[in-house]
């Protein structure tokens, strides 16, 4: 058993290290993704307060009028109702083909009062940050999924081997011994990992389920082939939404708002999430009404499909699915956490941050151990040290700078959203260079200090450049903005405390004549 544990220890060490820095980014951006719409709101301060109450029928009518005017030739309209924090504004989506036959689509948020698009600065917002969690950036989607999927696979192996090698996992559940060097790092690593172990296992495994067809395509290919037609057939087979072919004859659609009012009794207990209109304006136009699927991890929703011309009920599917589909959906639902109320969302976020801490402590332990053993080459140690500093301290800086760029870039420049991201990655490169060129202990202190300053500056930038600030948020009872700015302030203070503690520790080490930079 000891021999087995020793081998697993080696596997745990190397699977954790190889893509540890990427995993740190995935956990950091993924954790922020649990507040993606809140970050969106902060990054588009021009947007009004989301509606707390609204007339369902009137909202649908408003959307239909807009779509009839702006996208009459589209083959698909989708109206998303503002029912919760996942969809805070009335939003419409349309898709179709242009004159040359290319697919086009667009999505717009509408004002409930005026029916006109809500205008706000162009930004990727929290959605882009969250999507980078698995799509990364500057690379094709499939390649990104391969890379992040590989990282998730290594993460799962690291978790399982970590459980195997941790003797006394329950006996040491509450054990944390500070100020004992490497022992303290190991205790912290174990504490954050074991306390959030159910979350870590769930998030990693369910993350792999998201990309399962990328990694295990043969079953799918065997039944459906490799071409686009096969993919469409597969999606049609698993989807409960039946698409009726267009008749290619024009017809007047019913007033969807009145229609909603008349049929509300059928789904009165469940808020509507969206209306999916296929081939609007065609004699075979259909509207599929979906209930809110973010009320449980299961993600399933009831669907009613009606003729959009005469209102006849065409089909009704309940939320019950096959056990296979339910298993798949519940894993994805648990991963996304869309069902989570506010307090649970904070628990999700905290667990994600603990995941970041788990990875960070693991990488620091790897570096410290090899530095003390003296067996690793100087170049190898320097490389690991640089990557550790640039990731653990540098990634928060670049995220803070992404937020700051949102406030500082002129709202009228072209490709504004792209430039916010470019600035974020340029900042990360600067952090990498700084970590490579500065002495190790000063690099840690300076980068944590910089992270603290960046985050504390964000509320000031908001006050300076927009009407959105803490005082205004209190006055308007805008708890989203208040929450986001409060988190910035707390995060900034925490980073400054860390920088100060490191500074004091290194002062003590230097005063006692310890080897410079011996301990982080």
């Amino acid at each position, binding site marked *: 058993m000891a021999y087995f544990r020793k081998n697993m220890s080696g596997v745990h060490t190397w699977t954790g290290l190889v893509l540890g820095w990427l995993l740190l980014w995935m956990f950091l951006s993924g954790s922020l993704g649990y507040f993606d719409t809140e970050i969106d709101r902060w990054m588009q301060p021009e947007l009004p307060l989301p509606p707390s109450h609204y007339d369902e029928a009137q909202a649908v009518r408003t959307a239909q009028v807009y779509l009839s005017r702006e996208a009459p030739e589209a083959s698909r309209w989708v109206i998303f109702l503002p029912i919760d924090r996942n969809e805070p504004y009335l939003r419409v989506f349309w898709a179709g083909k242009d004159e040359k036959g290319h697919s086009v689509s667009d999505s717009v948020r509408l004002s409930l009062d005026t029916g006109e698009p809500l205008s706000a600065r162009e930004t990727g917002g929290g959605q882009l940050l969250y999507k980078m969690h698995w799509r990364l950036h500057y690379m094709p989607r499939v390649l990104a999924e391969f890379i992040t999927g590989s990282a998730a696979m290594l993460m799962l192996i690291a978790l399982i081997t970590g459980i195997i090698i941790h003797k006394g996992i329950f006996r040491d559940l*509450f054990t944390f011994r500070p100020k004992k060097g490497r022992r303290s790092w190991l205790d912290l690593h174990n504490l954050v990992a074991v306390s959030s172990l159910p979350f870590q296992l769930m998030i990693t495994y369910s993350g792999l389920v998201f990309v399962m067809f990328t990694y295990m395509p043969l079953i799918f290919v065997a039944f459906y082939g490799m071409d686009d037609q096969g993919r469409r057939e597969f999606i049609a087979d698993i989807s409960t939404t039946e698409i009726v072919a267009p008749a290619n004859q024009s017809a007047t659609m019913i007033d969807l708002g009145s229609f909603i009012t008349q049929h509300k009794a059928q789904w009165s207990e469940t808020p509507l999430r969206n209306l999916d209109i296929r081939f609007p304006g065609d004699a075979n136009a259909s509207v599929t009404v979906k209930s809110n699927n973010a009320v449980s991890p299961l993600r399933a929703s009831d669907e009613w499909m009606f003729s959009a011309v005469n209102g006849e009920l065409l089909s009704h599917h309940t939320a019950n699915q096959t056990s296979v589909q339910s298993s798949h959906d519940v894993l994805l639902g648990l991963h996304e956490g869309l069902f989570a109320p506010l307090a*649970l969302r904070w628990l999700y976020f905290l667990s994600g941050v603990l995941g970041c801490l788990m990875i960070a402590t693991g990488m620091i332990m790897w570096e410290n151990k090899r530095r003390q053993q003296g067996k690793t080459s100087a170049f190898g140690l320097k490389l690991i040290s640089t990557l550790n500093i640039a990731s653990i301290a540098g990634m928060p800086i670049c995220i803070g700078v992404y937020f700051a760029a949102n406030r500082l870039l002129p709202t009228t420049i072209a490709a504004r959203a792209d430039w916010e991201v470019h600035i974020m990655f340029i900042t990360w490169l600067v952090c990498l260079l700084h970590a490579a060129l500065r002495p190790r202990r000063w690099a840690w202190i300076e980068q944590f200090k910089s992270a603290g300053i960046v985050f504390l500056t964000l509320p000031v930038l908001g006050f300076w450049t927009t009407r959105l600030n803490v005082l205004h948020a209190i006055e308007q009872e805008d708890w989203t903005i208040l929450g986001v700015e409060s988190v910035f302030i707390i995060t900034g203070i925490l980073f400054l405390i860390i920088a100060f503690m490191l500074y004091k520790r290194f002062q003590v080490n230097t005063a006692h004549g310890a080897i410079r930079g011996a301990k982080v």
Partner: protein
Amino acid sequence: MNEITVLASFSTLIVSGYFMLLTMTRHRQKIQSNGFSTITPTKKRYCRVLASLCLLLSVLPVGAGYGWGIGSVYWFGLLNIVILILALLLNYAAFIIRWLFFTNLLVGLAAIELSFQ
């Protein structure tokens, strides 16, 4: 009312954690202010049983308040928080743990009663 169920589960988990800490010599020494560091095997067994019972009981309020799907997710999150709180308090302010136990015992009982009304 659902927030009460979260409070009930959280308090019950704190109580469970306290009993669990009493069964571990090193941790018991930190939280017992009178220097009492030994415990009979029978009392240790009772503490373990009480800890397990409270752990199981803590699932019920969030399960009743939010349904077993969301409730179980909540429970794992609360368990995470409680382990962290107790581990950090053990090192930096162990004297608080006994007060935490008594407070949460009372709050938890009240919250459980309100949860199931």
